[in-house]
């Protein structure tokens, strides 16, 4: 293992935190209209592991740094890497993400506009979304070959999200355009979740039901502009469980099961997040 691999491995395995907002629904892939609170900085580590048939087992980690610029604008940076058994550990790329909430009041369906620039190579195994005809057999190729192919793309998402009776239901429609001359690629994600308790407890507890949320999500690819549809794409679905600690950290776990032959049997996911409150106050003058 060379020096770069060692450094990346340490960064991947030792990075302790990844955050989800205290009120954020328990999703890995799906976005809701809940934005990062203004002034808060969230650092999150999203981990995914799988042992696909006919391909080497892999582990991928995404480090997320999210900041609430205003109550209607959240910015985020992702750094990604992966390690494949019997192969190598590689840094796979980065993403800059922006989410805008155009309507200032709560509606039955709340839209959020998402714009992202991504620069990653084909060795990316983060499964943050699925577009095009991405299938699990793509992972059979060695990292050395995959990382040579770099993709720079702009991705847009239309996020539609609703809250009712403590439930959240979110739908994401994804459109991605490689900046080289390639067609538009599409994907989708749907999630639903709920806190285990409607009311808060008057007791000073750390593991009350109100701190737990359960949910589920479904996501997959929709092909390209010229070949749109579910055919030849992968689909995953699974339950999620989140613990929103009153001490600002969140742990979300869940398996996601492949629903067709183009998918891995199971993606095991773990997300750990920590939220630093009101970071902007550090840069304010005392009044």
């Amino acid at each position, binding site marked *: 293992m060379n020096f770069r691999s060692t450094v990346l491995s340490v960064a991947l395995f030792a990075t302790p935190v990844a955050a989800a907002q205290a009120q954020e629904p328990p999703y890995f892939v799906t976005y809701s209209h809940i934005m990062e609170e203004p002034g808060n900085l969230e650092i999150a580590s999203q981990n995914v592991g799988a042992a696909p048939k006919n391909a080497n087992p892999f582990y991928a980690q995404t480090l997320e740094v999210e900041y609430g610029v*205003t109550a209607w604008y959240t910015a985020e940076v992702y750094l990604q890497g992966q390690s494949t058994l019997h192969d190598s550990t590689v840094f796979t790329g980065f993403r800059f993400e922006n989410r805008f*909430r155009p309507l200032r009041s*709560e509606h039955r369906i709340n839209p959020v506009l998402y714009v992202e620039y991504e620069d990653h190579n084909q060795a990316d195994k983060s499964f943050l979304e699925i577009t095009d005809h991405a299938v699990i057999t793509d992972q059979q190729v060695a990292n050395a070959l995959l990382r040579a192919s770099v993709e720079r793309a702009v991705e847009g998402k239309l996020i539609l999200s609703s809250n009712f009776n403590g439930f959240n239901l979110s739908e994401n429609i994804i459109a991605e355009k490689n900046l080289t001359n390639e067609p538009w690629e599409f994907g989708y994600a749907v999630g639903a979740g709920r806190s285990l308790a409607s009311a808060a407890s008057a007791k000073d507890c750390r593991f009350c039901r109100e701190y737990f949320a359960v949910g589920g999500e479904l996501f997959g690819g929709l092909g390209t502009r010229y070949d749109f549809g579910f055919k030849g794409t992968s689909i995953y679905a699974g339950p999620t469980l989140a613990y929103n600690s009153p001490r600002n950290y969140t742990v979300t776990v869940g398996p996601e099961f492949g629903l067709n032959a183009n998918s891995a049997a199971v993606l095991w996911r773990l997300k750990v997040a920590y939220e630093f409150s009101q970071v902007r106050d550090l840069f304010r003058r005392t009044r």
Partner: protein
Amino acid sequence: MRRLAAVAMLGVSVCLLLGAADGSWLRRVPDADRARLNPLPDKAAAAEAGAHVYAAECARCHGDQAQGRGNRPPLKSDRVAHATDGELAWLLKNGNSWKGMPSWSSMPDARRWQVVAYLRSMNPPVAPRRDPSQGEQK
């Protein structure tokens, strides 16, 4: 480069201006929401639970003692005392995103009403203003 810096400064200024709380949200509350009463039967227990929710979710911006912080307003205030329970619940649900207050719509209804009960315990109610647009604007 200078033009870019000017645009960035303008953006930051707009964001800061938008962050100033001025109570104008009161004008947007529908009458039906304004008239709503806290449905939780035991207000003292609700306020006690609401204090925990406040400490976890609200104190980071509005202060541990609801004294306000920076341009985020105090919640022990004349404005909160004059607001109806329904107005406070509406604000928690909808937020006032252009002024910096996030929506807490993902929080279940009961939990939001607990926060309202806690705010009310800190601000005993006074007669609500008939026309919020003519009220005191801090």
